């Protein structure tokens, strides 16, 4: 294995226009999902009179804070369809966007440490295959072949009893993904407006007709919310509630190392997930902090817990130094599945509730959300993910396959 050189740091890829007084569509949040939505609004629906508003800087929220893992091995049919659509889009996006954002299909291992983990894993592999998602069950010795630096000794505290493996899963260079989408959206006429916080909504009765922002009022035919951890705050400003709770989720990276870690390893039971970035950092994540928070920092005991798990699984990392830690704010739903669809406010649409796993879904979130905004109706892929499911009870309980405690 050799280190892959990074793409050149790009020059300015998009314009920085002042906001106009009105647009056909305003998207709130210029993270991966907001940018993908704008891109597919233009590409799939020919809607280019679009502004994407970002209170900070483009892709500086959760898009800059995630652990870049892409996979589609979810349990339920609805989720498998959505995430597999995303994975198929990922596979063609570098060429389509003419931008090598280092999508690396190095596979994802989800380890099993208990008999129940084994049963859940085997069940999920079978469910995945029925849904056309590539998945394999690996016994312990096969796990060791995929990732030789894993400690699969039976004498560890949480021995590896096997694992699920999705070979097509992997990682991508998250910043470059955002920039690639931003460049294309910009080229097609979308205004990407940074430093522009949405402070309120302009309504005509129960219908939204624009947004109030830190840079003035902007009228809009339709408004799409893609504000991740702040979706609850935005909904409150628009006068409705979302069944989401915002939690800090933190991750960390080590100093740079030679390429030693060939895949992505996740473990629900001991709760860590590890991959090695192209540049050489070990990228590690854990679960969310239990409490609600918007502070973009997490609890130290969570780091202690995940590091203990990582060192047990990967003794080779025992002397690696932590380079930096950070936190993002994730909006968590009761069934660990996203909400993509209409809201009680007419012409106002929401894409939220991705919890700890929004990055992998970026293209499918954009694809389905753009469809919903453009047509006013859900795409078949996001129809089951409507807000109404919390009233009808048709939940999509993905706490197991979400793989991160939340």
């Amino acid at each position: 294995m050799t280190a892959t050189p990074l793409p050149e740091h790009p020059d300015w890829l998009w314009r920085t226009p002042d906001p106009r007084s009105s647009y056909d569509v305003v998207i709130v949040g210029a993270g991966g999902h907001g940018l993908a939505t704008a891109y597919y609004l233009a590409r799939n629906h020919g809607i280019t009179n679009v502004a994407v508003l970002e209170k900070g800087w483009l892709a500086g929220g959760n898009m800059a804070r995630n652990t870049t893992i892409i996979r589609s091995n979810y349990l339920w049919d609805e989720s498998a369809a959505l995430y597999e659509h995303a994975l198929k889009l990922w596979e063609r996006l570098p060429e389509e966007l003419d931008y090598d954002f280092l999508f690396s299909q190095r596979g994802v291992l989800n380890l099993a440490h208990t008999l129940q983990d084994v049963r859940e894993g085997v069940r999920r592999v079978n469910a995945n295959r029925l849904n056309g998602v590539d998945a394999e069950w690996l016994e312990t010795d096969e796990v060791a072949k995929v990732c030789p630096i894993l400690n699969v000794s039976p004498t560890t505290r949480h021995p590896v009893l096997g694992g699920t493996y999705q070979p097509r899963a992997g990682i991508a260079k998250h910043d470059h993904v955002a920039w690639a989408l931003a460049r294309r959206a910009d080229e097609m006429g979308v205004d990407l407006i940074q430093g522009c916080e949405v402070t309120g909504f302009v309504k005509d009765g129960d219908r939204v007709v624009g947004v109030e922002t830190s840079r003035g009022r902007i009228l809009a035919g339709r408004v799409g919310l893609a504000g991740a951890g702040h979706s609850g705050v935005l909904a409150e400003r628009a006068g409705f509630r979302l069944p989401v709770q915002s939690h800090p989720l933190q991750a960390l990276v080590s100093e740079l190392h030679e390429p030693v870690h060939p895949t992505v390893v996740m473990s629900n039971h001991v709760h860590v997930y590890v991959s090695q970035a192209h540049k050489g950092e070990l990228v590690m994540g854990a679960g969310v902090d239990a409490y609600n928070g918007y502070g973009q920092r997490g609890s130290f005991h969570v780091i202690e817990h995940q590091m203990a798990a990582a060192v047990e699984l990967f003794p080779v990392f025992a002397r690696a130094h932590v380079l930096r830690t950070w936190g993002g704010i994730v909006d968590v739903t009761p069934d660990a599945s996203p909400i993509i669809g209409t809201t009680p406010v007419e012409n106002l649409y929401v894409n939220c509730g991705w919890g700890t796993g929004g990055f992998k879904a970026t293209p499918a979130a954009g694809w389905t959300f753009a469809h919903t905004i453009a047509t006013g109706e859900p795409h078949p892929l996001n129809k089951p993910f409507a807000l109404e499911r919390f009233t009808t009870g048709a939940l999509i309980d993905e706490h197991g396959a979400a793989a991160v405690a939340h």
Partner: protein
Amino acid sequence: MLLLNCPWCGPRDETEYHYGGQAHIPFPGTPGDLTDEQWAEYVFYRDNPKGPFAERWVHSTGCRRWFNVVRNTVSYEVLAVYRLDEPRPDLPGLAGLPGLPGRSDLRQSADPAGGNR
């Protein structure tokens, strides 16, 4: 790490506790009368404020008792700790804790004793 002051045991690290979500969500007083929308409100919808938030914690590795905390969800400052049988302190930012339609109905009908549990 948060430092929470258990009303019975005193200040302890966050790791001794478990989180219980929003406080003051009483079981509906007349459950047979609730619509599906009201049940959804009761089961799935919670406030998610950026600022002071009244929430429940349990001292799971200590006295194992529940209590309430008002905490700022941005600064993580603990503004008040009080027992379940004590009223919520009247702090700035908490006045009213406005609920949306459905929730306020639930609150009124749910707790005929008028307690703060």
